[in-house]
């Protein structure tokens, strides 16, 4: 799956690096001084690299934990994100990562201990519960077999008394979670669009059915699960498709196991959108009913309101509205 691994010279001594390398005995290993030499240059094609991304192992420096946009939260007052990985195993055509990064290579930061220190400091500096989102620049679980992220960080979060962690995923690679006791302050949040949309736009993503199954299994085990209906996409038979999706989920996953549902209509910074559209000029999604507003490409206001209202209404048949959070455009 990974044929080429780039490594920063400075991390060659780290045990995490050796551990990852040992999983790919046949990979070509190429050293670099800094990951930016590979990840940042211009004249790279995200679309082409997506066919066969390399893995870059590097050390992240500077600030490692960042405040999260207000609209991203699920009820907490203090919200942060951290990224051990940039980019994703999957290839969703609406994904903003395609517009944000010049390269599709998986860029993994192996200095987990530095992330831990910063998370610990932030969490200790707050008296109220503090949220840490791990799936902002990647899928939290899809590359678990490579990164060992969850198996490393969940025990760490368990020891932090007021820290909540969200794993956000479209993966069914949940084995690591089944192998441990559920954490009281962790939410495993699954993102969904109806299967008809997923088949068109979420390339490589497990089926909706298998994700619901994974969610159900985790809920049964006692994990808190989350539902992320983001992006909400205008489509034919919108009501029927989203209604089916919600029914399929809530018939399998009991309401009490669901920590939160968040809903956000498709939106993207204009610069990212233009970049992605240029890479996929034939993509139907980009012929959608979008408008440029305030530096963002989003649905025309009226459409966005309708989509959100309808989905909130559909959800209200299944879940307490207090658990539903609307992401603002």
């Amino acid at each position: 799956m990974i044929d080429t691994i780039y490594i920063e010279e400075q991390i060659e001594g780290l045990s995490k690096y050796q551990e990852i390398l040992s999983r790919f005995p046949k990979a070509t290993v190429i050293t670099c001084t800094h990951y930016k030499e590979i990840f940042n240059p211009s004249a790279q094609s995200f679309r082409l690299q997506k066919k066969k991304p390399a893995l870059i192992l590097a050390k992240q420096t500077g600030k490692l934990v960042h405040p999260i946009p207000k609209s991203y939260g699920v009820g907490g007052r203090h919200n942060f994100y951290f990224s051990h990985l940039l980019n994703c195993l999957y290839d969703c055509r609406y994904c903003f990562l395609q517009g944000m990064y010049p390269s599709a290579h998986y860029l993994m930061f192996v200095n987990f201990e530095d992330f831990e220190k910063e998370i610990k400091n932030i969490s200790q500096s707050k008296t109220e519960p503090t949220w840490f989102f791990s799936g902002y620049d990647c899928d939290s679980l899809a590359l678990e077999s490579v990164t060992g992220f969850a198996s490393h960080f969940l025990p760490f979060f368990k020891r932090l008394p007021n820290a909540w962690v969200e794993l956000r995923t479209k993966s069914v690679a949940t084995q690591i979670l089944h192998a441990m006791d559920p954490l009281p302050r962790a939410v495993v949040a699954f993102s969904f669009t109806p299967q008809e949309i997923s088949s068109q736009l979420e390339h490589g993503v497990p089926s909706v059915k298998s994700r619901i199954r994974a969610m159900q299994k985790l809920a049964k085990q006692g994990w808190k699960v989350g539902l992320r209906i983001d992006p909400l996409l205008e489509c034919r038979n919108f009501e029927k498709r989203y209604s089916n999706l919600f029914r399929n989920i809530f018939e399998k996953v009991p309401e009490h196991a669901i920590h939160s549902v968040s809903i956000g209509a498709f939106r993207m910074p204009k610069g990212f959108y233009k970049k992605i559209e240029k890479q996929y000029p034939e993509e139907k999604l980009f012929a959608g009913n979008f408008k440029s507003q305030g530096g963002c490409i989003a649905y025309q206001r009226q459409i966005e309101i309708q989509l959100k209202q309808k989905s909130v209404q559909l959800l209200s048949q299944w879940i307490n509205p207090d658990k539903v959070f609307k992401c603002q455009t």
Partner: protein
Amino acid sequence: MNFVVAYLAEAQPVIDYYDLKKVDHASIPLFQNDQHSLVLSGLGKNSATSATENLSRSTNNPNGGWINLGISGHGSLAKGDLFIAGKILDDNAKETFYPPQLYASSITVSTLKSCSKPSMEYQEGMGYDMEAHAFYKTACQFTTRELIQVVKVVSDNPSFPLDQFSPKDAPVMINQHLQRIDDLVKQIEETSNTFQIDDKVEEMFESIGKIHSFSVTRSHQLQELVRHAKNLNLDLGVIKEIAQSSTNAGDAIKNISEFLEPYRTLG
């Protein structure tokens, strides 16, 4: 494919394999057929830079694939081995290139250092040439890095140093790897084809553009609308008819936009 090769002795097997013809009227040593172009650069970085620039002006497809092919020294590979550069250093420049390795190939990946003078240095795992870095840096101006690769055959190594190498051996050495080189060429070309502009959209855009006088802004809008119509699987002939029945460019943009509106929902 655009080939940049230092000497005729290295290029001859490629010229023969693809049946390239010398372009007599060209001001550069250029060989071409419908699909491929090859330029002889001569030795060294400056020559590689100007040959790559010149070829970009003479080729049909500067945004397509680029390969720098030739012989090179190597610190550990055997004489006659083929390798592809995964990292390209330069003895005088700071910038290092990492050609993305996307292609299914059994070709060994190696680091390559471009030197200002012929090198008798043989560091473990390192190849040595005199053109690749300058070639790569220049070709990056014309296309995306994934489509630019450097492929070399080992001519000398610690057991057979450079002073024992005869340029006469170059054609045979390259010849034995042509099949694998061609496999790579095909993959790069296939990849590059995914970037080709949709002719149908372009033709229709140009044809509608002649019906009314479109300003630059409206022309962009029209191009986008035609592309959207195609992506939405609509008949482009209908779009043209709408333009024809419109009174002017502004009216055409408005009418086509309104026509597309109900189709813009995902299936």
